[in-house]
């Protein structure tokens, strides 16, 4: 199936796969009608999809370096777009984003703009040039463009810090979903999640990850869009929610004005379980200062253009031209989900707070709400909570609390959709978290195996040995990530945002100037990476330990400070030291032209 003219057959193969998945959903809904329990449906969904990914991972096994590192550079634009979208959209995008919009409104939507706008920078500043370069990893570019082992090593350090911060959150998310769907304790579920992740990547490297990510994208986009459309139709909000929710949005604003945002006392809030929040911000009004919005969007955009697990997806296209187009397709596939998240948040919020809807709970008596089935389920799962603070017996807006995940996970049930949809959503969340974790673990393991082991420690190593090292590292890094994830130190979304800030602090300017400024040299790049990462991290620690910060830069946007330091250090040090030699200048000239051979050979 994967051999021969597999590439030519891709539309057919994935067409059959999509049809098979839809048939599976239908079979499950029939089984539900015939009395299959909710728990069994959940297990079936997660187990079936993970088994498929494992089979794809096995079929993609390879013993060749260019297949392992860059999928043989033959992934067509549209499919690479899907794979990148799955790589990109993590458990946080899938499970937490609609919740963030639900609670924080406009201020949070800076992330939507940031996580899409960054792709314009990827397409115009970096991806096609790095593809022309012909590197296997991002540090491969830094090491060859600037020369010297130290610059290569610094790039590996930045990559590892950023990607590792990110990956623990993803393994955490797979663990959470596996523990709910399979009903096992979280400490074990984390390792179940990890083994599923490794099954996709270990045998086939980038090739295995590419074809599983395409499969995962198909599952996650169906799992996200189907409930949104279904709920919208069921509520009578419109058959195509994206274009038809204006009335609902203005109705929410009307209700907000009617209820008002009553501030709860600190004493009352102590009762509320940790992690749950109430609606305290307007839904569609501008509730953040321009700088708060713009700085967060800017940090996410520059972070997008510096994250190695995204960049390396564009090393797999057949040509420079294809790399450019592929960025457009990636963003299109991401857009399908991101533009639906605010719609889901709107539908979810209105169905809960509008007293004129049968599902609305605000204005009902507390006892009545507490007797609703779905309320009891989600209260038990620690994702919903009501309390009669003012003692009037009725539920007010400020007396209802919910976890961010509940918007995606609970809304189908609240709207009265069959349980099969909840099973589908669990499979989608698992696909989103797994695909991102795979990309990240592979980015770290490849950088260490290719750049540290092969390029620095043992340049004479044979391909077979290199690939063994790469696979051992994959497992080691995976287990390290899972062990830290099992400790449950940090929230999912917070650490994802930090990863962007770390990446932009250390890598944004060394990458961009490597292509766009010929005068940039080794000393400058090393200074830029080192001082950028260190100053960014120092700023984060300072703010976390009670520092006041400056210029409105918070712990979520510390990369703006880090990358500014990186830029200044890189320019100043480059100009103070010798210009790059003629060979390097010529290399930059060649990178700027799509035609001709890549800088690094097919096998290197």
């Amino acid at each position: 199936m994967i051999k021969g003219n597999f590439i030519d057959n891709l539309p057919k193969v994935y067409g059959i796969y999509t049809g098979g998945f839809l048939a599976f959903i239908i079979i499950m809904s029939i089984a539900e009608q015939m009395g299959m329990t909710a728990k069994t449906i959940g297990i079936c969904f997660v187990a079936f999809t993970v088994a498929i990914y494992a089979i794809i991972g096995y079929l993609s096994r390879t013993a060749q370096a260019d297949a392992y590192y860059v999928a043989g550079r033959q992934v067509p634009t549209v499919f690479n777009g899907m794979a990148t979208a799955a790589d990109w959209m993590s458990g946080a995008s899938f499970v937490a984003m609609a919740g963030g919009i639900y609670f924080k409104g406009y201020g949070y939507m800076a992330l939507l703009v940031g996580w899409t706008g960054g792709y314009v920078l990827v397409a115009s500043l970096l991806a096609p040039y790095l593809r022309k370069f012909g590197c296997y990893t991002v540090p491969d570019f830094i090491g060859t463009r600037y020369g010297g082992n130290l610059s290569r090593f610094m790039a590996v350090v930045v990559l590892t810090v950023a990607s590792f911060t990110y990956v623990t959150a993803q393994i955490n998310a797979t663990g959470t979903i596996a523990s709910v769907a399979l009903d096992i304790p979280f400490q074990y579920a984390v390792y179940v999640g990890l083994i599923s992740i490794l099954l996709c990547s270990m045998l086939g490297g980038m090739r295995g990850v590419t074809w599983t990510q395409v499969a995962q994208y198909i599952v996650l986009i169906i799992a996200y869009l189907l409930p949104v459309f279904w709920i919208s139709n069921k509520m009578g909000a419109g058959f195509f929610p994206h274009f038809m929710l204006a009335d609902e949005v203005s109705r929410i604003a009307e209700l907000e004005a009617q209820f008002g945002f009553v501030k709860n006392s600190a004493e009352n809030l102590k009762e509320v379980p940790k992690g749950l929040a109430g609606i305290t911000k307007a839904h569609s009004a501008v509730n953040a200062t321009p700088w708060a919005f713009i700085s967060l969007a800017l940090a996410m955009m520059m972070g997008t253009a510096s994250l190695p697990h995204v960049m390396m997806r564009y090393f797999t296209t057949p040509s420079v031209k294809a790399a450019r187009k592929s960025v457009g397709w990636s963003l299109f596939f991401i857009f399908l989900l991101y533009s639906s998240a605010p719609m889901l948040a709107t539908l979810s919020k209105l169905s809960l707070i509008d007293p004129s809807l049968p599902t609305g709970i605000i204005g009902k008596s507390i006892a009545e709400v507490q007797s609703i089935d779905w309320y009891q389920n989600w209260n038990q799962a620690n994702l919903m909570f009501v309390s009669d603070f003012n003692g009037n017996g009725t539920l007010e807006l400020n007396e209802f609390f919910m976890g961010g995940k509940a918007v995606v996970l609970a809304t189908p049930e609240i709207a009265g959709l069959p349980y099969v949809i909840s099973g589908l959503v669990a499979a989608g969340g698992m696909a989103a978290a797994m695909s991102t974790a795979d990309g990240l673990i592979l980015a770290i393991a490849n950088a260490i195996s290719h750049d540290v082991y092969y390029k620095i420690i043992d340049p004479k190593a044979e391909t077979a040995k290199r690939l063994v090292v790469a696979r051992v590292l994959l497992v080691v890094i995976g287990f390290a990530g899972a062990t830290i994830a099992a400790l449950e130190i940090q929230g999912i979304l917070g650490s994802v945002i930090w990863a962007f800030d770390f990446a932009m602090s250390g890598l944004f300017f060394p990458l961009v100037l490597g292509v766009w400024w010929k005068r940039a040299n080794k000393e400058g790049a090393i200074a830029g990476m080192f001082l950028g990462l260190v100053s960014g991290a120092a700023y984060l620690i300072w703010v976390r330990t009670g520092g006041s910060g400056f210029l409105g830069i918070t712990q979520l946007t510390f990369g703006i400070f880090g990358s500014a330091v990186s830029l200044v250090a890189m320019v100043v040090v480059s100009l103070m030291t010798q210009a790059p030699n003629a060979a390097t200048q010529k290399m930059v000239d060649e990178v700027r032209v799509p035609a001709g051979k890549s800088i690094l050979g097919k096998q290197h």
Partner: protein
Amino acid sequence: MSKQEQHWEKSKGLLMMTLAIWFVFSIGIFLFGAEMNEVTGPFGYPLTYWFTCQGSLGIFVLLIFWFANRQEKIDEEFGFSERGDD
């Protein structure tokens, strides 16, 4: 000016234009978020809200495809496009 320099000059021009459009829809309009939100935008949503949900995101998708096509034209004009197809 050599062919390669001309090609790079044109590529830089395209980059500047792309980044200018990018800047307007990712940063520029949000300087006036509060004022713009008073206006009713496409499909009846408040304008700033619409940009954050759909508008800016969709414009970025179109912008990348537009950029890719223009850059391809520039490469072809100077004979720098790749041989073979994808």
